[in-house]
């Protein structure tokens, strides 16, 4: 591909007790929307803040538009728009005043402020104090501030966490509009599968500071044509499933909900093998469900956990 807008090369970051990011590399092409998906504590915020130049990697290199943060900070700040996972703006400042303040940092005037306020749908809240905004309105304010400078690169850390489905959809609409109109590249972190599926053309799943899997949505879900996801429970659940050689898929057994899960490559040839496996090990099937693969299933089969756990 042509020069990527963001290139991350083998980046590591540790805190006192944890290795938050353990050797992540990625490239983001111009104009693409990328989702970084992962459960709590996966290292999403740490990774994104290193890309934003807010945290420094212990090891590895990050290039934005081919430039490092060191020596190019002033230039890069002009073209990046971002929202942090959690920011509380000045309580007793009105929406329009808060926007104007941030606009002035980019030498932008009232016209752009008005434009953005209507873009994020806060027209009837422009005179409201920030402290009196609802959660969704605050997220839209943060998004608006991220969009003020018409950024080439947009980095959003969990822009819809904690919102109800309606508020979440409103933010998706704003971002989808942006995707159609401008050449912005975006990285967004999220716990929500649906968000990644709706907004992004490339998905990176990370857990415990490492990339588990990445690709386009289609690539991920249709790696092998006709993959199915199987979930089953047993009448006589064991503490641990016996290992198997005759059955090819990796079965993950969740002790908490007493359910087993695996991904089936070919239903016609592989499903009988599964029944043989149960019989050989004296396991009695209680219930079984077989359906098309979703991202959540993919994640669960990779880690044995749900994404939003």
């Amino acid at each position, binding site marked *: 591909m042509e020069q990527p807008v963001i290139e991350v090369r083998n980046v590591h970051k540790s805190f006192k007790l944890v290795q938050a990011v353990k050797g992540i590399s990625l490239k983001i092409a111009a104009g693409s929307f990328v989702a970084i998906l992962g459960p709590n504590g996966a290292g999403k915020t740490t990774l994104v803040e290193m890309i934003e130049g807010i945290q420094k990697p212990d090891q590895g290199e990050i290039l934005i538009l081919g430039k490092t943060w060191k020596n190019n900070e002033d230039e890069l700040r002009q073209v990046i728009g971002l929202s*942090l996972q959690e920011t509380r703006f000045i309580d007793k400042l009105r929406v329009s005043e808060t926007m104007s303040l*941030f606009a002035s940092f*980019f030498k932008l005037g009232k016209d752009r402020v008005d434009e953005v306020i209507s873009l994020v749908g806060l027209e009837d809240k422009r005179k409201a104090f920030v402290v009196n905004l609802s959660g969704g309105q605050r997220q839209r304010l943060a998004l608006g501030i991220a969009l003020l400078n018409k950024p080439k690169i947009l980095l959003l850390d969990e822009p819809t966490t904690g919102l109800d489905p309606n508020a979440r959809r409103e933010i998706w609409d704003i971002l989808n509009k942006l995707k159609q109109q401008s050449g912005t590249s975006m990285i967004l972190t999220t716990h929500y599968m649906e968000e990644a599926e709706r907004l992004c053309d490339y998905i990176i799943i990370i857990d415990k500071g490492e990339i588990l899997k990445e690709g386009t949505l289609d690539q991920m879900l249709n790696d092998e044509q006709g993959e199915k996801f199987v979930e089953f429970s047993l009448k006589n659940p064991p503490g641990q499933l016996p290992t198997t050689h005759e059955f090819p898929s990796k079965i993950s057994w969740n002790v908490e909900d007493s359910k087993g899960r695996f991904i089936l490559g070919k239903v016609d040839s592989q499903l009988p093998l599964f029944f043989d496996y149960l019989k050989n090990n004296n396991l009695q099937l209680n219930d079984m469900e077989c359906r098309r693969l979703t991202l959540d299933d993919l994640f669960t089969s990779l880690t044995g956990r749900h994404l939003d756990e």
Partner: protein
Amino acid sequence: MNKYFANSQLFQLINAHFKELIREPGVLFWGIVFPILMSLGLGVAFTQKTDVVRKVAIIETNDDGSNSLTKSDSLLNFRAQEISDLSTDSFNYSITIPDEQLGNTTFLFRKTNWQHAMLMLKRGKINLILNEKDGKTEYHFDPLNPDAQLSYIKLSALFGKNDIKPVTEVGSIKPLTLTGTRYIDFLIPGLIVMNVMMSCMWGISYGIIDRRSKKLLRRMVATPMKKSYFLLSLITVRFAMNFVESGLLVLFAWFAFNISIQGNYAALLAIFMAGNFAFAGIAIFISSYTANTEVGNGLINAVVMPMMVLSGVFFSYHNFPDWSIPVIQKLPLTMLADGIRSIFNEGAGFGEIYLPFGILTLSGIVFFSLGLKIFRWH
């Protein structure tokens, strides 16, 4: 308004911080009024000592050759111990009245002329002047200062008890309501400097730590905002507020108590600004690292509390032990308080305040640059 100006970072930052301040009455109350009330309580608690030292100036009578000893002369001859150290501000005689129940009272006497006695009174080194004229004893003190009243009562009792000529006519009281010598004249400059310190420390320090803990600081520096403008705007807003608040206080005191500024106005402004600058520097320094508002509280208190108690905001620091006075006089709040008091009450000008002015400005610069070096924006 000029469009470029209205869109400029600095203007918008000042505007935002100013609006934030005036829209939050709680900030004004908890940041300023509450510390005043609390320190008032502390101040009272600290003045109640069991062993009391009362300092008095005695006006030396002109030697008219009559050879007759004044009452005070004979009292001092009979009862007092002479103190040999004769530096300008020390005392010549001391009398200790033992009292097992209420604590000892020690009177320190200084014989001096009227002019010097007044200066000592204005500075709070003494609170009573004794003058003997034509065989009568005159007591000069501020009747609104309860401490001075007590000195008067105790001293007149002492005079009666000593088999010196019984006083038939009670010594006449000459209330010192002359501007510049009353307790209120001492108090107003104290309140001004306390307000400057509190407002800088709580306003600037707490403002920075709070923004850091809310991740707002981190968000702001993730834009092309000039970091120096951010700090400058916080400081500017505080300076302006302090100026207005002090002005109102002086205006009020002028109406209510008829206080006046006897010295140079420009010098007053200069030392006021230097004091603001020093405390702004200290505020930036102590808020340069922590993101925890409770640690911030502790740090601010650690700076503010000792000076509140020691620097002579409500009562003269000359009541503290002698060895501590030189240390106390080097505290920034003491320098500012003494400087402003000398301009208000002693008619001082640039000649008297250039030293504290220089030291305060310099410490502002030092703390500011140290703070910037270790400042944590994220």
